[in-house]
């Protein structure tokens, strides 16, 4: 067992937890958190394979992708939060109506 | 010496695990927040020990990043939740 294997297996588990969370949880904020956890799993798998392919330094391309990815994920989370808050203010709903 | 550093890091991680109980329990938002602050400090300590263990001094920059942003959450709680009924109990 090597370091990258531990984290790549963890990344798969995190991704599946995130997908399950998107289906199972009801509240908007929890759904947003679930998507962020999915994203975390994807980033973790990228970086763990970058560490496996390291020569004198780790593979920089996945690192660069993950750095941009984190910032983009945050921007999309902000948009999702804005939508969720607007929906709550207009209708009082805290989840999608067909989930009730 | 390396073994000693690993023991210290594992010990500090276990501290974080213990502290999770207070995040879970609450009861007030402020309780959860102060535990998160404790996690941040513990994380900084872990980063410093890792910097010595791996000999990678750039890790100190990560610790400073945590450090200068630690106050942000507290200020946002204090300002944003002010005069809000919120979850006090």
């Amino acid at each position: 067992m090597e370091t990258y294997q531990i984290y790549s297996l963890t990344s798969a588990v995190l991704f599946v937890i995130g997908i399950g969370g998107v289906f199972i949880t009801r509240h908007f904020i929890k759904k947003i958190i679930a998507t962020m956890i999915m994203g975390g799993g994807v980033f973790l798998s990228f970086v763990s394979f970058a560490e496996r392919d390291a020569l004198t330094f780790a593979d920089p391309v996945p690192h660069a992708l993950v750095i941009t990815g984190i910032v983009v994920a945050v921007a999309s989370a902000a948009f999702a939060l804005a939508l969720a808050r607007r929906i709550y203010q207009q209708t009082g709903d805290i989840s999608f109506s067909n989930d009730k | 010496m390396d073994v000693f550093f690993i023991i210290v890091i594992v010990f500090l991680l276990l501290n974080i695990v213990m502290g999770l109980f207070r995040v879970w329990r609450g009861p007030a938002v402020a309780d959860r927040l102060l535990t998160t602050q404790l996690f941040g400090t513990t994380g900084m300590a872990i980063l410093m020990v890792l910097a010595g263990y791996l000999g990678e001094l750039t890790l100190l920059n990560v610790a400073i990043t945590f450090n200068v942003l630690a106050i942000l959450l507290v200020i946002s709680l204090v300002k944003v939740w002010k005069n809000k009924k919120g979850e006090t109990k």
Partner: protein
Amino acid sequence: MTIVELITVIFLVVGCFFFLAGTLGVLRFPDLFSRLHALTKADNLGLGFIAAGMALHIASPWAALKILLIWLFTLLASSSTCYLIAHFQKEQDQLKNRKEGE
């Protein structure tokens, strides 16, 4: 084991002790204000001792300066955090009491 290593080990152990004390305090103390007290102990002394130990171990002036900065910022941030959270909680409690009084 050289004398510097010995001092590092002692500092780290003492720092770990304060972190344990802080965590246990946050877990066991009965109300928020005493928990804040426990938190600041871990922040100030725990991090301070670990910082001192690692500064000795790393033994580079630039890194020692950074570690000192980390500790000073944490001192500042944790004492202000303590004040702000306590003040916030006091206001919240007053607000709640007033609402219950009505």
